[in-house]
């Protein structure tokens, strides 16, 4: 963590610093490098923090097997796993292992954590992707409508709706939808990523990706494809609406902001209709801050995924995390938490880069 990586600070969304460099391409390159160097201390801090916090409760083996083994057996296993060495040595070893992609072995079911992460990460990725699609489809048009009808009844009701989306805990939204669409109406399945039959077919597939839609497409069985998609509807909507509310608010605020910019005023004075102003003129620049915000939403989305997966028994990282938490398997918990943190840091990096490519004001 050298000083010059830190000086750059956090690129603030939307408004760039006043310092304008005329060196065009090198400015971008420098920004990329600085921004990339910045995620290293971020990940390092997160790993350190999680490690220290998790170990303040004692070693993972005692936590998992405390009541079940005798003191002698326990001490033997602790020593075998190396948890009796000084904490600092263990920490350095853990850091080294993570760099090599080794997150340890779970205590409850004795699997490599990295393998668990790969298997279940695909499911979470799939869910998050669907949810983002729902959020875009719902949030952006509604936000534009709200901006168009600013301060009128439509605007107010849309905004209350956005707040409702945010105010409803994902698991409650999930429970309600399950109750209505699965139990009462019987339209959609209640749980899981696929029915047992399709699940077996998908598992039998050689070199499977883990993302069920892709696997189902490769399988080429239309029934399985349909089954997988039908199972995804409720979880995707549940998680998507949470983010949609945030997108709606953001699009509205930004479109209102751009609607009063000079070039929009000049278009208005040329007689361009108000609808066209929103649709064509004000909407695009309003999307730039949204790209930046998506980066921050990834954290919320992953947190929401943990809850959504538990609600719908969607066997992803979040669902697995809760299972391991209940088994008090802290090696696995630590691995999953650290992986999610790394994903968030990298996503933020990628999003910042995209924002810089689109909007030159972000670079400096």
């Amino acid at each position, binding site marked *: 963590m050298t000083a010059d990586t*830190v000086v750059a600070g956090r690129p603030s969304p939307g408004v760039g610093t006043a310092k304008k460099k005329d060196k065009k391409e090198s400015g971008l390159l420098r920004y990329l490098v600085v921004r990339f160097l910045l995620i290293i201390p971020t990940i390092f801090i997160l790993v350190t923090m999680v490690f220290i916090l998790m170990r303040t409760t004692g070693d993972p083996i005692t936590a998992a097997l405390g009541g079940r083994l005798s003191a002698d057996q326990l001490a033997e296993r602790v020593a075998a796993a190396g948890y009796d060495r000084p904490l600092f040595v263990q920490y350095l070893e853990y850091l080294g292992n993570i760099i090599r992609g080794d997150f340890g072995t779970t205590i409850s079911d004795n699997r490599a954590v990295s393998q668990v992460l790969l298997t279940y990460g695909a499911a979470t990725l799939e869910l998050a992707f669907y949810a983002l699609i729902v959020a875009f489809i719902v949030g952006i048009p509604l936000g534009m409508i709200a901006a168009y009808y600013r301060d009128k009844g439509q605007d107010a009701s849309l905004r209350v709706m956005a707040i409702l989306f945010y105010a409803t805990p994902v698991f409650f939204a999930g429970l309600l939808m399950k109750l209505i669409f699965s139990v009462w109406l019987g339209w959609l399945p209640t749980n899981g990523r696929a029915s047992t039959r399709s699940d077996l077919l998908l598992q039998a597939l050689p070199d499977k990706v883990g993302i069920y839609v892709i696997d189902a497409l490769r399988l080429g069985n239309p029934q399985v494809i349909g089954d997988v998609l039908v199972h995804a509807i409720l979880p995707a909507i549940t998680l998507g609406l949470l983010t949609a509310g945030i997108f709606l608010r953001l699009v509205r605020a930004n479109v209102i902001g751009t609607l009063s910019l000079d070039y929009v005023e000049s278009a208005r004075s040329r007689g361009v209709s108000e609808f066209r102003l929103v649709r064509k003129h004000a909407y695009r620049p309003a999307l730039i801050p949204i790209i930046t915000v998506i980066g921050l939403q990834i954290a919320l989305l992953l947190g929401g995924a943990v809850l959504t997966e538990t609600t719908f028994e969607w066997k992803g990282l979040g669902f697995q995390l809760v299972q391991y938490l209940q088994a008090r398997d802290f090696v696995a918990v630590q691995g999953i938490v650290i992986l999610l943190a790394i994903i968030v840091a990298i996503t933020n990096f990628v999003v910042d880069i995209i924002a810089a490519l689109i909007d030159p004001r972000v670079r400096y």
Partner: protein
Amino acid sequence: MARTIGNRKLSLWDRLPLISHFRQSVGWQRGMLTGGLVITGIFLVTAALAPWLAPFGFAQLRDANGLFGSQVPPNSKHIWGTTVGGYDVFSRVIWGTQTAVSVIVVAVLLSIFAGVLLGLVSGYFGGWLDRIMVVVADAIYAFPSLLLAIVMSIVISGGQSSLWGGILAAAISITVVFIPQYFRVIRAETVRMKSEAFVESAKVIGASNARIMFRHVLRNSMRTLPLIFTLNASEAILTLAGLGFLGFGIEPTAAAEWGYDLNKALSDVTSGIWWTSLFPGAAIVFVVLGITLVGESLNELGDPRLRGRKSVEAASGAMTETSVIQTVTAPAHSGDPAIEIDGNQGWSDR
């Protein structure tokens, strides 16, 4: 920035955060603010009167006529039915308000205290300490808050908790999530304030660092706090419920917690039992909706670009960014002729 319109000093009443905001509001904005205040009021009153409103205790399983029974549908005795564990749903929802209020109060007070102090010190002194603290705060801020809360509750209570220990564990877990937010806001304000003329002049007359920090800088950096407070209060409820839903909640015998009840209701839903999940869930939505409506209104009223059009142009001089939700920098569109109202002075620096 220190731009005072006229010499009138507003009475304390008019300068109180919510009152001044209410007086500025017009139309739908006033409606949303009023709605939010009413809901929040109902929530607080319910929490205060819980012992008298709830027909049964939150951990009560039986009365003179024997056990309540499990999953009893709503009837005249249990108007919202009973849970799978045999508790009265209505009573637990009512008692749940107390848990929610205590967690909000403890969490927000702790995080304001820690966040404000750290932000002030970091922003005022700057240097390497500031840089490290900013990087750490950013790292925590980017971390999924629910995961951080889970890790914290493992640390504090080993994952299981009882009575006040549970409330405290939940509150501290939430606090850790919130500190970076207060830290960032207060630090940014402090850095901005530090270069103001009145801070320089305080230095010139030899005021101590502590005095400048608390007397000159802090008092001028506080104006966004009511807004963050409301946003965080609603997030605190959601995080508490999330922790409860994942099984990190407060034991049912210790206190009533809505997230825990929803966790237990998860399997009920599949068999079509709706009352065990609908009511605690609706309670969460209702309370978060109320507090968020207040927060949203405060944010908009503090931001001249988003405030209702009638009052937009009144005092649009040099304005600082007060909106927590960042928007594209743009001058306000003035649709209607400006109508000057007193409230506009409420947030210009004095």
